[in-house]
Every structure is written in structure tokens, then in C-alpha cells.
């Protein structure tokens, strides 16, 4: 009787164990192991919205244009293109020999189909308004007219014509975004919405999808049919989902990862000392800012107050002592490094600290506040160690310099988002914005009136007008001047307090070659390779 029971237990165990050994493939020995800070929520490039998904999608698929390892725009699926004089008509010539991972040829029609699917309201794509500049796109997305009316055509298999409603000098950048990638119609026909799964996904980029274990691993292998396959050095790439940055660091140190997605803030100094040249820090198109709710007091119509608060922040101290990972302080809205653009700086950025603080106090009093009548204000931020540190620092800076009594309110992400959007209870809120492409427009556009991402609810007719003029301007030099003027104007209104610009931090093993730091933080696996063995 007893032996029976022990046997039974052993059987149960064997069963349980067997029950799941069909696990993740480890990949061939020279597989590139990369870290991913959170899982890709989907590999359908129209439904994707996270940066992580975009990273993986860039390895899987290919758009008309792409970026080099150093962040320059380069031709990808399209080998050349022309723009009409009025800036409304783009003609792309696709390369010869483009193929999907199952061998099917990639034709211009696939790009048409892809863009149609993007703007189709039924798809409910997140980046639906990315291509809103295309003729009829807005109406289609609103559901007024059918998708077939989109201003994109494929006169033949290797030619693609895109017509814009208005000239948009930055438009070409948009075509590197994965949501503009082509689709494979037979896959959609067969699997409908669920084509983006291992065993089904057909891709046109350097890699194809080998396996996807949700929450754990995305495994890619070489797409032999890729037109540039000969230039792809690495056979297989494994993206490991590692939510905890310390866990990722440990894996790197144990030699199980070649590239990390980030470096834990608390370990930064130590990592810098220990790994010196394996650490890659690079400015990003990403700004960390505090926004004002301009629809309500105390910040509505109170420019002096806003300016005072912005001036009372010591940005240098913030980035050196509080955040301390090489982030540059932000005195503009658009980050440095954007193509063809020199961001203007806040008027007070040249003042000494004392002068700046004195002036701030003056403005504060002008705004109607004083030591006896201090401003009481709430700062909201989403739960995160860094955000908390920053908030505490700013709270104390405002108290020291102006006597402002700030209350810190720490909210769960969704709550913080909802509050920001509704703009009912917010006063000062922490936020950030990542640029979608390498052009100032991606930053300046969100502060236009009515833009969904305009969290402060900034409304300035002059600003809007300048932005529109710039959009219509095809001469890059003229356009640049208009944009810079717009930014100058906006900065002087102080709708936001720019604090610092993010930097990307990666640890990259010395045996990896081809890594390029760039402001977009795009690192295509096809540009990377392993150093030849034997070389030191």
C-alpha cells in the first residue's frame, strides 16, 4: 500500500515534468542574446505600440526606408525615390529581388495593402494618424470613405506612389516606422488578425520568427530570402524579456547576454567603473518634463508663476546628483541631435544660479505669492523610483528658493495617465515624450492646439500658425527657421518645464561589432556581428 503511494507520486511528478519540456529553443551557439525590458505585446505591426515591439519588428520587417547604425536615413526596401516639386507626390522604386521569408516576392501592392490596413478604422491601429498626411487618410480613419480611396498606389510591382494632402518635409522619416511596413496578403487571408504568431508570421526583413514564449523569449532566425541576406552576419537573435533591470545585469555579468536594454540606475556608477568601454551612453530623442495644467488656476493665465517655477529648478544639480546617469539637462523642448535643427534655449539658461533664483523670486511675487502667501501645489507622477527622487528634489528646490509648498502625489500608471488626460485634478504633472522620427516636428507637433498628446492643453494661435507655415515650407533652411521660431515662442510661454533628456544606456560585450550609438536608439541586428574568433 505504501509503495503504491510512492509510486503514484513519482508518476505524478514524471507527468508534471514531461508536461512542459517543449520549451524555448536555445539557438545555435553564436546566437545573439539581447535583453528586452518588457514583452512585446504583439508582433502585428499595426497593433503594436510599444518601443520593445518596434525593436523586434525592425529586425523582422523592413519598410521603404531605414536607418544606418549611426542613425542616418538610408534606403531600405526602396532603392530610390523622387519627390515632386510641390512636395505632394512621392514616387518610390523598389529593389529587385525583394522576398518574404517564405519565398514569395514582395511587391508594391503589399505596401499599399499595408498602409490601407494602417488607416483602416477597423484595424484600430495605434499609429493610425502617422500617415494622416496622405490624401484621404483622415477621412478614411474617421470612417467616412472606404479604404481604397487612400492616396497610395502601385502602378506596377516595383513602383509605389504616395500622394500627400499637404506638403510634409519630414514625411520620408515616417516610412521607417514599422507601422508602415508591408503586409503579406495570403497570411491575412488565411489567419485574419492572428497572423503574427510563430509558425504563421511571414516577414520581409533580415530575420524571421522562430519562436515566441510570451513573457520570456522571442527567438528570431535568419531570413534566407532577404535581399541583403549576404550582409547579415548573425544567424539567430534571442530577445530575452527581462523586466528586472538587475536581473538583466546579472545575466550580462554571467555571460548569458551580449546586449542589455538598460542599466539599473543604482548600479550605474559601479557599472561605469567596472565595464568602462562596454557601457554605451547616448542621448535620445526623449524628454523628461513637468507639465502645467493650463486650463485651471493657479497656472492658467499666470505666466510669471510658471516662469518662476521653471527658473527655480536647478537642472544641473538634478542631472548630476539626483538622476546621475549622464543625462543632459534640458533647456529646450526639442532634444539636441535632431537632423537639421538647432533648438533654441530658455531665456534664463545663461544666467548664473544666483541671478536666476533672484529673478525667480521676483516673478513669484509678481505672480501674487510670497513667503506669507505661499503657493500650494500638487505634483503628480507615476510610481517609479526615479520619478520619486526627481519630485522630491524639485519639491525641495521650490521650497528653498521660493517657499512653495508642494505636495507629492504618487499614482499608479493608469491612474496617472487618466488624470493627465482629463486635466481635472492635475496641476503639475510629470511626463515624457519620445520622438517617433528624427525631425523636430515630432516634438513640436504635440504642443499644437487640439493634439491628443498636448497634456498641458497649450493653445497659442501664433504657435499653431508657425507650425502650419513650416509644414508647408519645402525649403529645409526656411523650414528650420520657422520651426526654431515656433519653439522659441512656445518656450517663452512656459507651458512646460523641460527637465532633462533621456540617454540610452546599453552594455555591449566587446565581441560584438557594428554597434552604433544614435539618438533614435535603433540597433538593427543585421548591422551587428561577432568579432572573428582568435582576434583580440
Amino acid at each position, binding site marked *: 500500500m505504501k509503495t503504491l503511494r510512492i509510486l503514484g507520486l513519482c508518476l505524478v*511528478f514524471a507527468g*508534471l*515534468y514531461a*508536461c*512542459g519540456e517543449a*520549451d524555448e*529553443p*536555445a539557438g545555435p551557439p553564436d546566437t545573439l*542574446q539581447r535583453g528586452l525590458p*518588457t*514583452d512585446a*505585446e*504583439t*508582433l*502585428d505591426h499595426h*497593433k503594436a*505600440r510599444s518601443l520593445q515591439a518596434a525593436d523586434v519588428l525592425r529586425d523582422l520587417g523592413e519598410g521603404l526606408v531605414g536607418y544606418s547604425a549611426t542613425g542616418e536615413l538610408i534606403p531600405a526596401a526602396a532603392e530610390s525615390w523622387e519627390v515632386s516639386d510641390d512636395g505632394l507626390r512621392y514616387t518610390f522604386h523598389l529593389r529587385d529581388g525583394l522576398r518574404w521569408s517564405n519565398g514569395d516576392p514582395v511587391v508594391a501592392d503589399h505596401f499599399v495593402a499595408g498602409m490601407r490596413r494602417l488607416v483602416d*478604422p*477597423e484595424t*484600430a*491601429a*495605434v499609429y*493610425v*494618424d502617422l500617415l494622416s498626411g496622405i490624401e484621404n487618410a483622415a477621412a478614411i*480613419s*474617421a*470612417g467616412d470613405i472606404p479604404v481604397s480611396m487612400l492616396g497610395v498606389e502601385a502602378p506596377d510591382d516595383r513602383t509605389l506612389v504616395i500622394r500627400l494632402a499637404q506638403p510634409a518635409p519630414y514625411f520620408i522619416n515616417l516610412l521607417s516606422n514599422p507601422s508602415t511596413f508591408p503586409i503579406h496578403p495570403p497570411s491575412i487571408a488565411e489567419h485574419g*488578425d*492572428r497572423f*503574427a*504568431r510563430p509558425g504563421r508570421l511571414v516577414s520581409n526583413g533580415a530575420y524571421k520568427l522562430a519562436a515566441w*514564449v*510570451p*513573457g*520570456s*523569449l522571442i527567438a528570431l532566425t535568419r531570413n534566407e530570402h532577404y535581399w541583403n541576406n549576404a550582409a547579415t552576419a548573425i544567424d539567430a537573435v*534571442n530577445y*530575452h*524579456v*527581462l*523586466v*528586472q533591470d*538587475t*536581473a538583466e545585469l*546579472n*545575466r550580462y*555579468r*554571467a*555571460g*548569458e547576454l551580449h546586449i542589455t536594454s538598460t542599466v539599473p540606475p543604482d548600479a550605474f556608477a559601479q557599472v561605469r567603473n567596472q565595464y568602462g568601454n562596454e557601457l554605451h551612453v547616448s542621448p535620445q530623442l526623449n524628454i523628461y518634463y513637468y507639465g502645467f495644467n493650463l486650463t485651471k488656476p493657479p497656472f492658467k493665465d499666470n505666466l510669471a508663476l510658471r516662469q518662476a517655477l521653471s527658473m527655480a529648478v536647478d537642472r544641473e544639480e538634478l542631472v548630476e546628483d539626483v538622476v546621475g546617469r549622464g543625462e543632459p539637462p534640458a533647456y529646450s523642448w526639442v532634444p539636441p541631435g535632431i537632423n537639421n535643427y538647432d533648438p533654441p534655449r530658455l531665456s534664463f539658461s545663461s544666467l548664473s544660479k544666483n541671478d536666476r533664483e533672484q529673478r525667480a523670486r521676483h516673478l513669484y511675487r509678481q505672480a501674487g505669492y510670497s513667503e506669507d502667501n505661499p503657493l500650494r501645489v500638487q505634483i503628480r507622477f507615476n510610481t517609479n523610483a526615479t520619478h520619486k527622487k526627481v519630485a522630491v528634489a524639485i519639491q525641495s528646490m521650490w521650497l528653498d528658493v521660493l517657499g512653495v509648498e508642494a505636495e507629492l502625489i504618487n499614482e*499608479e*500608471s*493608469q*491612474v496617472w*495617465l*487618466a488624470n493627465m*488626460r482629463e486635466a481635472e485634478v492635475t496641476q503639475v504633472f510629470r511626463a*515624457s515624450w519620445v520622438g517617433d522620427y528624427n525631425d523636430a516636428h515630432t516634438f513640436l507637433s504635440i504642443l499644437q492646439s487640439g493634439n*491628443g*498628446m498636448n497634456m498641458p492643453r497649450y493653445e497659442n494661435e501664433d504657435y499653431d500658425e508657425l507650425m502650419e507655415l513650416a509644414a508647408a515650407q519645402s525649403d529645409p533652411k526656411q523650414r528650420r527657421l520657422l520651426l526654431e521660431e515656433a519653439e522659441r515662442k512656445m518656450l517663452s510661454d512656459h507651458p512646460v518645464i523641460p527637465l532633462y533628456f533621456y540617454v540610452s544606456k546599453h552594455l555591449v560585450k566587446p565581441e560584438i561589432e557594428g554597434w552604433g550609438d544614435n539618438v533614435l536608439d535603433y540597433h538593427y541586428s543585421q548591422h551587428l556581428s561577432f568579432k572573428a574568433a582568435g582576434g583580440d
Partner: protein
Amino acid sequence: MLRYTLLRILGAIPTLLLVIALAFLMVHAAPGGPFSNERVLPEHVEEKIEKKYRLDEPLPKQFIRYVSGLVQGDLGPSYGYRDYDVDELIAETFPRSLRIGALAITLALLLGMAAGTVAALRQGSWLDKFVMGFSMTGLSIPVFVVAPVLVLLFAVKLHWLPAGWTSQTGISRYVLPVITLALPQIAYIARLTRASMIDVLGRDFVRTARAQGLGTATVVRVHALRPAMLPVLSYLGPAVAAVLTGSVVVEEIFGISGMGQLFVRGASNRDYTLVLGIVITYATLIIALNLIVDILYGIIDPRVRYR
């Protein structure tokens, strides 16, 4: 016995329904939704999505729809992982969590009961104090401290074991996660066993067994072990629950694609269907476990057998 089991299973259904209803309410009560995120969707798109997933319907209607889907075995599509259905995600992750959890519990039972028994037999000795001290530490140090320390030592410094789940296939990657998960349980079970064993060893029938000249090992094995196990058995229900939920931290640290981390991600993404699906899975598991514990209780203690 059969009748009892069937009755218990039937009785579990209303409990399950209550759990689902509560979870449903809570998940929808939290501000935000599955499709709100930093990149604000244009209004018409947001409407479209909500319509597609029927989030614009009144709550009671959504609930009824969900439950009727449940009855047919359909847990719905995931709102977060939009390429997958909830049951696929659970089927992918649950066996993994279960396996690690089962190994952890088994390890905890074996080591914990052995340690507790030894401590009880040598009550008051240095061995007893050592075992109890060790278990106290095991209980006090949280998982998210233990795990990284173990990883640093065994993976980073010594390279004996992989630092993460996806670094290798095979048995070695189980070692650290299972140990991390088992540690607090070992500690608790050791304490429980020790106390229970001390109590049982003081009972009359153990004295009889000793008087029968059976020898300590036989006395423990044949006579004392069974009743001493009972409190541990009662603890097993909550213990397994703790292991399965505590696995979130372990899963995140080791990068294991388990149900715990899926749950947490689902909750913060407001992935309603996924969260509900996992809640149902957990609830069913715990109810089943409690039933098994009760049955085992009846096997060990014949006096409670014929209810």
C-alpha cells in the same frame, strides 16, 4: 467518500462564481483601461477598439457575456497580447509555473519535514537551535533579496548555474528558482513540523510504541509521522497558493515565462480577460487543493473518514 467529493465539487461552483464576479468588478473599477496608454489614441480609434472588444457595453451585460463564454469553455481574447487568446496564454505559462511550484513544494516538504523532525527529536540541542535559527532567517529574508544574492553567487561568480531561465534548457535552470521559492516554505514547514512532532512525541501512543522497543527511527516513521503531518497538510493549501503567487517575484528575477508575471502585467495593463482567466485558474486550483487536502486528511486520520 465519493459522494462527499462530488458534493464538495458542486459546492465549489457558487464560490467560483462569486470570485469571478468580485474580480470582474475590481478589475473594471480600477481607473484606466486596456487601451489607454501614454500615446493617446485618437478618439474615433479608441471608440472603434472599445466597440470591437465590447467595452462600451454596460457592465452587467459584459459580465453575462463573459460568464456565458466561460460556460462554453471560452476565456476570451487577451486585450494585452492581441494576437493570443487567454486560454492559449494560460496554457503556455501555467504548466511552467505549476512545475516549478510543485518542485518547490516537494522540496520544501521533504527538507522542511526532515529538518523539523530532527529538531524535534533533538529538542533543546544545538542542532535544534541551529535548525530553528536557520528557518527563522529563511522566513525573514524576502524573496527579492535572496534570489539576486543566489544569482550573484552561483551564476555570476561561480558560473555553476545559469542566471536566467532562457539561458539554457535542461535541469540546471530549475535549481535556483526552485530553491528561492522553496526557502521560506522550508523554513515554515520545519517550524510547523517541529512543533507538531514535539506534540505527537509526547502523546501516550508514542510512549507505547517506545515501550514496545521499536527504536526511535521506527517509532517516528511508523507511529509519529502520520499524525505529525496533519498540521503541515492543513498548511498545504495556503502554502501552494503562496508558492504560486509568490512566484511572480521569482519569475521576474529569473525571466521565467510563468503565470505570475503574466498576471501582474495583465493587471497593470488592465487586460481584463487575461486577469479574470488567471483568477479563475488560481481559484479553481485552490479549491481543488483544499479538497485534496481534506481527502488526504481523511486518509491519514481514520476517525474523520466517514463524515
